[in-house]
């Protein structure tokens, strides 16, 4: 059985599955109690106090960051507002477990509605709630205890700080969770410990306890009961990889010293540390949607500013490229209303929406202009007029470096015209492929057309990069394709000046580039473009990139 999730902490782990799943049932709606209200309230308070005490004690034993997280959870458990609410629900006739459930629900709703970092804290709250309900029902919460015979792959719906506080690094081969995102507790902890981790992996909790699991924290691939030979291959490939990655250090460059800054794609301030830790030289795509989601009003300049300043501060002297709000019908925002669209991907997205709501753009540009030395680019630009309009807007608000993303084929075909007004371009290969092949990114049935090795896509990259070189301007790549080490070499051969990717992919790409000369990259790029199919292009390029095999990629 193969599962796929999102790799959030690179590396590879293998071992028996330790499935940490407790399901604490939702207490039935309207459940009542027999006896006195005072006794029922007492019962609830005892459970809350007991859980708070346990969390604090675990934190105390764990120390460090875990202690702080658990202390905060203990405070949540004994929150005076929560306790008042539990008591009043019991007075209204609800049984203690249901009263606890409903009292937490109100806070949970507020946190979950905020999205992002705060939204993921809703999981911390759920954990506290389930512990209190378990205490009331007399259900034992599982913990991790004893030294296992061999390191295990910890599988759970989501890991809570209390689950992992006393975790011993040497006992764990990998984390696999069904839920969670790049800023979930699991992901943060995994990166801090250096444990490979895959989150958002549907079906994970269905893994049989004890089954052997092979998890790749880079690709997000999870294999259950893999063949012995696959494990052996993965183990040795991983050892080779680690050794090769360890050798390639410092700024991105080819074997003959041609510099190619390696940047990270970042979804918000919480991911900056991981990017720095992975050796990113800057940010090639700083997404700003997190500032705008789940709100009724757009954020003001002052509210946006800290998020931009943090990015600038994380990479002093490095490039930080911020993408302006990329909203549209598929990521609709209450304060940017557009009529319903039959084909949202072809509707008022990205910069097109800014033309309708210029005040939102101006506030964002104002914040970016004062935040520091940032480069700013607009998404979904199709024509030279749009590019010029955006650059003018940037200049009038004091943004020094203005660029556009190339993700619509028309922009690639006439890149030279766009480049006459912008300072730089960045190719978003994911959307460029979607629009070039008329193949929906979200649709599995047409995913073969989304192959980044499609020669037509490589042609568009080449056109754009060549136009940029002639204009003497930078052409970066910030799509997923830059994360593939072989493709990264080809992109450099096509003329890309920087590569930006998820931080987890940086070590492999750095090693692949360091192992090949710029000439080899160019030959590989030419060979790929001479091919007719994606598979042929991949094979043809690899023939000119001899060190890839040695690197195990």
């Amino acid at each position, binding site marked *: 059985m193969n599962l796929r999730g999102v790799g959030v902490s690179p590396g590879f782990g293998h071992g028996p599955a330790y499935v940490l799943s407790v399901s604490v049932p939702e207490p039935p709606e309207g459940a009542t109690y027999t006896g006195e209200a005072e006794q029922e309230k007492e019962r609830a308070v005892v459970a809350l106090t007991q859980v708070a005490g346990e969390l604090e004690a675990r934190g105390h034993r764990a120390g460090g960051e875990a202690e702080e997280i658990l202390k*905060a959870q203990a*405070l949540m458990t004994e929150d005076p*507002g929560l306790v008042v609410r539990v008591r009043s629900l019991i007075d209204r006739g609800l049984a203690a477990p249901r009263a606890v459930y409903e009292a937490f629900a109100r*806070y949970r709703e507020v946190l979950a509605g*905020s999205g992002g970092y705060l939204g993921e*804290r809703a999981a911390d*709250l759920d954990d506290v709630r389930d512990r209190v309900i378990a205490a009331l029902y007399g259900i034992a919460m599982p913990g991790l205890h004893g030294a296992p015979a061999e390191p295990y792959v910890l599988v759970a719906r989501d890991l809570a700080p209390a689950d992992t506080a006393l975790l011993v690094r040497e006992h764990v081969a990998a984390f696999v969770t069904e839920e969670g995102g790049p800023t979930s507790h699991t992901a943060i902890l995994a990166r801090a410990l250096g444990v490979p981790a895959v989150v958002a992996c549907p079906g994970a909790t269905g893994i049989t306890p004890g089954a052997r699991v092979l998890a790749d924290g880079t690709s997000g691939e999870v294999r259950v009961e893999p063949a012995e030979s696959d494990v052996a291959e993965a183990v040795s490939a991983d050892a080779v990889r680690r050794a090769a990655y360890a050798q390639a250090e410092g700024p991105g460059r080819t074997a003959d010293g041609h510099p190619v800054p390696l940047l990270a794609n970042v979804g918000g*301030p919480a991911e900056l540390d991981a990017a720095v830790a992975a050796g990113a030289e800057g940010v090639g795509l700083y997404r700003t949607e997190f500032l705008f989601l789940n709100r009724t009003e757009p954020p003001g300049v002052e509210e946006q500013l*800290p998020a931009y300043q943090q990015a600038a501060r994380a990479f002093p002297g490095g490039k930080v490229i911020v993408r302006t709000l990329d909203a549209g019908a598929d990521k609709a925002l209450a304060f940017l209303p557009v009529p319903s669209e039959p084909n949202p991907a072809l509707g008022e997205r990205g910069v097109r929406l800014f033309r309708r709501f210029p005040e939102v753009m101006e506030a964002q540009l104002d914040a970016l202009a004062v935040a520091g030395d940032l480069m700013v680019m607009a998404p979904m630009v199709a024509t030279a007029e749009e590019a010029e309009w955006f650059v003018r807007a940037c200049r009038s608000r004091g943004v020094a470096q203005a660029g556009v993303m190339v993700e619509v084929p028309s922009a690639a075909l006439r890149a030279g015209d766009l480049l006459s007004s912008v300072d730089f371009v960045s190719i978003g290969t994911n959307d460029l492929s979607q629009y070039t092949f008329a193949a929906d990114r979200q649709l599995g049935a047409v995913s073969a057309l989304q192959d980044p090795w499609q020669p037509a896509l490589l042609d568009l990259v080449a056109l754009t990069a060549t136009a940029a070189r002639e204009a003497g301007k930078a052409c970066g790549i910030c799509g997923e394709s830059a994360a593939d080490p072989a493709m990264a070499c080809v992109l450099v051969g096509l003329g890309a000046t920087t590569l930006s990717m998820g931080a987890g992919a940086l070590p492999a790409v750095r090693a692949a580039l360091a192992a090949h000369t710029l000439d080899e990259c160019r030959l590989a790029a030419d060979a790929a473009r001479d091919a007719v199919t994606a598979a042929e292009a991949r094979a043809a390029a690899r023939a000119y990139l001899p060190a890839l095999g040695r690197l195990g990629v």
Partner: protein
Amino acid sequence: MGERKVTVAAEVGLHARPAATFVQRAMKAPMDITVAKMHSAKPPVSGKSILAIMALDVRQGETVVISAEGEGSEDVLDELAEIAGTP
């Protein structure tokens, strides 16, 4: 009634550790303490409730108004303001 206006300096805003430290101090005080976010429609919340403070969603760079009344409230406010303003 005494009050302090403080710009939150911590990178995570008034969440996680800063919020926990703040609430732990507030809980030791005998009087009521309220926290409100400037330029926000949300009503002031109890400074002793970590859940209510988290729900205010105060980010780095945003300003909060901490209020308290009664004997010793000035000292408590000074301490709370320092916690909220600590990076």
